[in-house]
């Protein structure tokens, strides 16, 4: 019995009747009062015992959640001093080199937060670092969910919500990046203006609509501010709530293992264990972000100075999450079409207006595409190891490679100066690499997974190396293998066999005609490709034979040790 439960123990000295402890009585009364009015008891009874399985990768989403909380807290602090206005004021704050300059109120108040508000600079940097970590942790959480197959039925919609969160987080980040009205953020807004104007026909209308006239105008920062502190956080909060409600409703996924089935969740309950673990993790996230806010400089606006459309700085980059479209923009050749007096800027449209929405759409569609190809309509609560779905794993690795290369291209100037390379050659290399790299990565990742599957098969059928070397009468040396522990063998073999794709004859025999048949043939072909070369888990007979063989080998080994001329072994010592 834990210490926490001592309150439930009745106090008695043996002569007086047992009574409840005093504190428990008061707490019970309050709980009863609330329960009678809110019906919390029934809801809590179940959810306080909600079970969380233990695995580090299940906590990646929590980093995102907690950094979002840090964002809300620090963001509220910043709104108390930030003035989202583009009206011109004279800066008269504590930072000497800019004193007396005519700047926007937004910039002046950012400078005041940085230099005149106590703790303001720390809060600004924490807010910005938290934003960088928020989006990064959403991405690693998403990769975990994808690589383990946790997006499969019934969680496809939660996957879509997650993708929307990623999109909204990015927009939220961009609007925040633009608020201080320093040289860097102004350059970013200028770029966004250019991107909008690159959309055919409606471009300039859209730009004038957003900016309330020609760039930069006086409206963009107040408008971004409303989006940044009201509109997008509202939607973000709602989607986070939906994401977590679905998490509770679906229950947590878990890794396969003894005692773990599709019907249960093995782990620790919310109270008291996971409340402590997750609660503790919040403070860790908060602490790490505070540390970063205090240690690492982020967007030093006083060095960038106020935005002025006539100025620009080397190293003008967006925050990291916008880096990959920026990279594509940097490497795309100058393709333009002039038609009917209109210029179509493919060099801007493709990397900025086409690629990011396309990537997002691919991401959101992944669960549905995979389900269609595999024809798997069952619910899944046990996770798959990345190696047991080689094609799926390879698809994400290819996407990540494309992302990573585009991302690196976004820092081509920094790579050039730090590695003493020519920026032109980096660009030419990247132009090829973004196409070839993902293909190579796909092939390597897929074959790697299959090799790992083979390794698992070997462990199941031949056991693991014992470290015992045996010399045969002929003089040959061999290492003896011992069978895997049963629980490990169970975990390794607790996976489904891949389905066998329909053959053309089967489809034709089904009596369907026209488009449906063509679709089914396509699906069968894709399915064959999807599962091609995968190693299936050993059958029961194979395992039985392997066990038999292992026992035989063990006997042999023992008899060899007993009969051998050089008797040495554990018994001798």
């Amino acid at each position, binding site marked *: 019995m834990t210490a926490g439960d001592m309150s439930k123990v009745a106090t008695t000295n043996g002569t007086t009747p047992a009574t409840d402890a005093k504190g428990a009585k008061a707490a019970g009364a309050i709980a009863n009062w609330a329960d009678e009015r809110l019906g919390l008891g029934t809801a809590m009874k179940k959810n306080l015992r909600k079970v969380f399985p233990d695995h580090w990768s299940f906590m990646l989403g929590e980093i995102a959640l907690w950094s979002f909380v840090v964002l809300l807290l620090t963001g509220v602090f910043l709104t108390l001093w930030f003035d989202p206005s583009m009206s011109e004021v004279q800066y008269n704050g504590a930072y000497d080199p800019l*004193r007396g300059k005519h700047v926007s109120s937004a910039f002046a108040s950012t400078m005041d937060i940085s230099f005149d508000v106590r703790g303001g600079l720390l809060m600004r940097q924490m807010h910005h670092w938290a934003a960088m970590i928020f989006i990064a942790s959403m991405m690693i959480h998403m990769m975990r969910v994808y690589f383990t197959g946790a997006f499969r039925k019934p969680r496809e919609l939660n996957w879509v919500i997650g993708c929307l969160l990623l999109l909204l987080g990015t927009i939220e980040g961009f609007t925040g990046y633009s608020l201080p009205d320093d040289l860097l953020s102004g350059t970013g807004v200028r770029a966004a203006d250019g991107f909008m104007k690159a959309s055919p026909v409606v471009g300039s209308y859209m730009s004038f609509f957003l900016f309330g006239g020609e760039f930069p105008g006086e409206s963009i920062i107040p408008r971004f501010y409303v989006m940044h502190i009201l509109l997008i956080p509202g939607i973000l909060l709602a989607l986070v709530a939906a994401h977590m409600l679905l998490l509770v409703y679906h229950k947590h996924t878990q890794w396969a293992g003894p005692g773990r089935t599709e019907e249960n969740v093995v782990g620790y309950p919310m109270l008291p264990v996971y409340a402590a673990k997750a609660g503790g993790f919040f403070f860790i996230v908060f602490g790490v972000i505070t540390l970063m806010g205090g240690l690492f400089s982020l*967007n*030093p606006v006083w*060095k960038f100075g106020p935005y002025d459309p006539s100025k620009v700085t080397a190293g003008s980059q967006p*925050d990291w999450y916008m880096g990959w479209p920026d990279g594509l923009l940097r490497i795309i050749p100058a393709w333009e079409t002039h038609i009917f007096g209109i210029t179509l800027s493919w060099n801007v449209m493709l990397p900025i207006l086409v690629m990011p929405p396309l990537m997002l759409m691919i991401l959101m569609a992944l669960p549905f595409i995979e389900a269609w190809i595999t024809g798997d309509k069952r619910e899944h609560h046990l996770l798959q190891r990345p190696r047991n779905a080689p094609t799926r794993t390879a698809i994400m690795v290819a996407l990540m490679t494309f992302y990573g290369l585009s991302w690196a291209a976004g820092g081509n100037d920094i790579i050039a100066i730090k590695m003493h390379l020519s*920026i*032109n050659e980096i660009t030419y290399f990247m132009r090829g690499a973004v196409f070839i790299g993902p293909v190579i990565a796909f092939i390597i990742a897929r074959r790697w997974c299959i090799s790992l599957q083979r390794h698992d098969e070997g462990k199941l059928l031949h056991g693991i190396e014992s470290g015992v070397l045996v010399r045969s009468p002929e003089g040959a040396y061999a290492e003896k293998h011992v069978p895997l522990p049963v629980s490990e063998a169970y975990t390794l073999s607790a996976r489904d066999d891949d389905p066998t794709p329909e053959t053309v004859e089967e489809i034709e025999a089904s009596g369907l005609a026209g488009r449906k048949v063509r679709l089914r043939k396509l699906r069968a072909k894709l399915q064959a490709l999807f599962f091609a070369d995968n190693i299936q888990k050993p059958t029961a007979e194979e395992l039985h034979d392997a066990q038999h063989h292992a026992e035989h080998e063990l006997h042999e080994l023992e008899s060899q040790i007993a009969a051998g001329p050089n008797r040495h072994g554990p018994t001798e010592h």
Partner: protein
Amino acid sequence: MRLLNRSAGRLSRHRRGPIAGLLVLALGLLLTGGLYAAFAPAQADSSQSQDELVKEGRELFLVGCAFCHGQNGEGVLTQGGTQYGPALTDVGSAAVDFQVGTGRMPMAQPGVQAPRKEVVYNKEEIAALAAYVASLGTGPSVPDTELYDTDRPGDLNGDGKEDSEDKELLVTRGSDIFLANCTACHNFEGSGGAMPRGGFAPKIRGVDSKHIYEAMLTGPQSMDTFSDGNIPPEDKKAVIAYLETLDKAPSYSGLTLGGLGPVSEGIIAWLFGIGVLVGFAVWIAAHTTRSSKKKDEAAA
């Protein structure tokens, strides 16, 4: 008085002596020569050694520079017709003082751009080289100290004195000029940036004020020339004052991460931020509910 009269009288006895005239003449010459040496304008002195300086410079030039720039600084073309070493006939002494004084010249190897490295020549040799190259034609000369001495900002606010307020005005003006003309290549805090085809705008923090002034004046390597008509000397001084302020200012916001902008920030967010947090996640998940490990092992 008597004593003086006596000694003067004694001296006066010799005034008609045979060597008196000679002696007075020698004394007179010595005096005029000495006075002239003490009070004559400096260039009169160096004008005499200027030729020697040029001569010495030419000797150094023939050994260290002529291979690429030609025996007479006329430049050397490659077989393909491109520049091997450009002509130095009209670059002036400021260019030499910058290129050699920052170690960029002589180059260690041909390349897109000469990187800054250890300085090869000493002060006197650099002055000699500069004198020789200046003698080849026109071009800006090495600036006087007062042009880049930011402790003499001049009376900028017009209150009749030259004080710290003027210095502040100079720095503020410098930040304007710096952000308008320099950051596009050299980055917002002078950390440097990339130029086409392997070229680069170098880091300009911690560089001698004189060299920054000369760089603006002569436009070395890929850099534009900011002539005095383009950025007047006072504004050049202002830029230098701003850079000095950046150098002296504490890092208000923590480690500057190379002052490179969002790329290095993104790297830190992933490597440090996500790295540490995932490490903590592993740590938390690895710990079971038991407070002591012994019990856990016993249970296992």
